[in-house]
């Protein structure tokens, strides 16, 4: 008989891998070309693309928030408790909150590019940690 806990864990890992892929590829890649010397306009444009034109496929555009919303609802529907849930939500929220730097009136200077990269990259890193933790007790 298949233990439903393992089944749900496998499903969770599947979802996390997809999320890692989407945030790694679609969000981070749009920001990866920025350097410490990049002008503020370029930084804002890259952030806008990364957050609001995160994924383009077959003529449709999806935002980072929509992508996260889809995966979060799939994770919640599993009803599977895992230790890294809060860390995951926090790091994705940190990445999504970069949008506050898009409007010069509310944030005259965007953050340092190193900070942007760190926040964007953290999603992949946290997911990798969670997957490793989940796999360790098999």
């Amino acid at each position, binding site marked *: 008989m298949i233990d439903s806990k393992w089944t749900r864990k496998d499903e969770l890992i599947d979802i996390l891998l997809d999320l890692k892929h989407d945030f790694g590829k*679609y969000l*981070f*890649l*749009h920001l*990866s*070309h920025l350097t410490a010397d990049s002008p503020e306009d370029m930084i804002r444009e890259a952030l806008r693309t990364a957050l609001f034109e995160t994924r*383009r496929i*077959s003529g449709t555009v999806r935002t980072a928030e929509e992508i996260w919303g889809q995966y979060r609802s799939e994770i919640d529907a599993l009803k599977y408790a895992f230790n890294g849930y809060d860390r995951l939500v926090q790091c994705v929220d940190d990445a999504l909150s970069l949008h506050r730097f898009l409007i010069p009136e509310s944030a005259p200077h965007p953050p340092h590019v190193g900070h942007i990269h760190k926040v964007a990259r953290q999603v992949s890193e946290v997911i990798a940690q969670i997957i490793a933790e989940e796999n360790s007790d098999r």
Partner: protein
Amino acid sequence: MTAKIRLLLIDDGDTYAQLIREQMPECELIRPPGADTDCVGDGPEAISFLEKYKGPIDLVLLDMFFDIPEDKLFPLDEGASLRRTRRFQGVAILREIHARFPALPVVLLTSLEDLSLVDAAKDLVSQSMTYVLDGQDVDALRVRIAAATKRSRVEDGSRVLWGENSVMKAIQRRLTVLARGAMPVILEGETGTGKSWLAEQYVHVNSGRPGPFIVLDLSTIPENLLSAHLFGAVKGAYTGAVESRKGVFEMANEGTLFIDEIQNAPLEVQKQLLLVLQDKKVRPLGASREILVDVKVVAASNRPLDEAVAQGTFRPDLYMRLSPATCVQIPPLRMRLEDLYYLANRFARRALQNSDIASLVKEVATSIGISTITDIRLVIGRNDHTDVSGSLQLVIPKPVWRMMESHSWPGNIRELEMIIYNLITFTLVDAIDTVQRGIPITNTRLQVDAGLVGNLLLGARALERKPENGQGSGSIDDNRIPVTINSAGTLNDVANDVERQYFLTLFHSCNRDFAQMAHRLLGDSSKARAVRLRFNQLGLRVRDIKY
């Protein structure tokens, strides 16, 4: 500066395409015919494209995750869920590419960490020509592409024409110098000696110029459009100019313009070329201002330009402007036979990139019971046991090789390439037939049929120049040629058909020289261009006609 890296992107979205277009100017994405994006969106479409595409591809960039309908997915592992099949679809596509195009380098866009989760990937990524993008940024991608294409280009291109011949080595040194600076270069040599390859892969690549490499084949452009083609035109400049267009000089700005068969340029065009070379500016038709252009011109001719000057078909001032001091004469293959073995093996290896040959090789590999063959090598004589592990070896008997060495190679390197391709194809087909007759093949050494090589060379020998007042008589015997007529066609169809066959026969008998054809047809060798145009109108293309 190197030539642009030609990439085929297999991806279900355009994120990577956009990234490459915007941030990697050293790369050029191949756009499939009829597509509105610079990528192919799924595995079956990619395989179909690769099977049909005849142009150059340096590298395939393959995404891992394909969020596409189930019917467009290649199967992954037995029992794999739909989600898993989508996530690791890149592995399934890679498997197909390896099987059909084993010499094609592929960069898989994923991390080693993720790849470790799929069993099917382990064997695939350990094979040569597979690279994994282990990082998620543009720099990591750039480094990975550079590494993959460097190896591919070193193996496939950079030495293919040089070999050990001392004249070729001297030419290499000379072109290294001539490539630099803005001075024009003239490449003279018989058809098939590799002039266009040298222009693009050596002169342009080593020029350090950031602009593109543009080819101008004067013989394929109708005379009334030549000026617009050379210099561009603004909208409405002439009837049919519905939009502004750039001329080739403007397109090649800061790059290289290769003028093929310059000896066939009409005198009026020669005059216009001279003016551009002198003034370094062009005025598009209908434009009020001139445009400065910085173009390195490489001109190719299949006969000595000084002879054309002496005959009055080439302007002496243009010849002097092109600078005879920069003229490089490429030797015919018969003068560099010490490179024959090396060149033949380069073409044998390159043959694996041909999808038809790759699928035959796959069939032979299956018959032998090995998973993949990544290389084809020619070996001379049964006792040649050069280390060729991992290769399919075609054994050419020594007498046959001597026959190849004594052949005069009128079509030069291009002829050698075709003969090697044919030799490989027929040998593989023979091997497959043998297996189908119930006789097993037990190793990777296949004997080349001596008769086959003889027939291939004989076909070429029939085209060799015959000493008949400098004209080749070829296969036109007693002024008669056999012609096939489709009786179901209209009178016009029949007339075109006859004319096409006559042109083709004459083309061979004149050793592929349009000036000779013009002399034979019109009694005036300077009408080569008109003959070439008619040739093209009849649906004939020089590059498609085998020796």
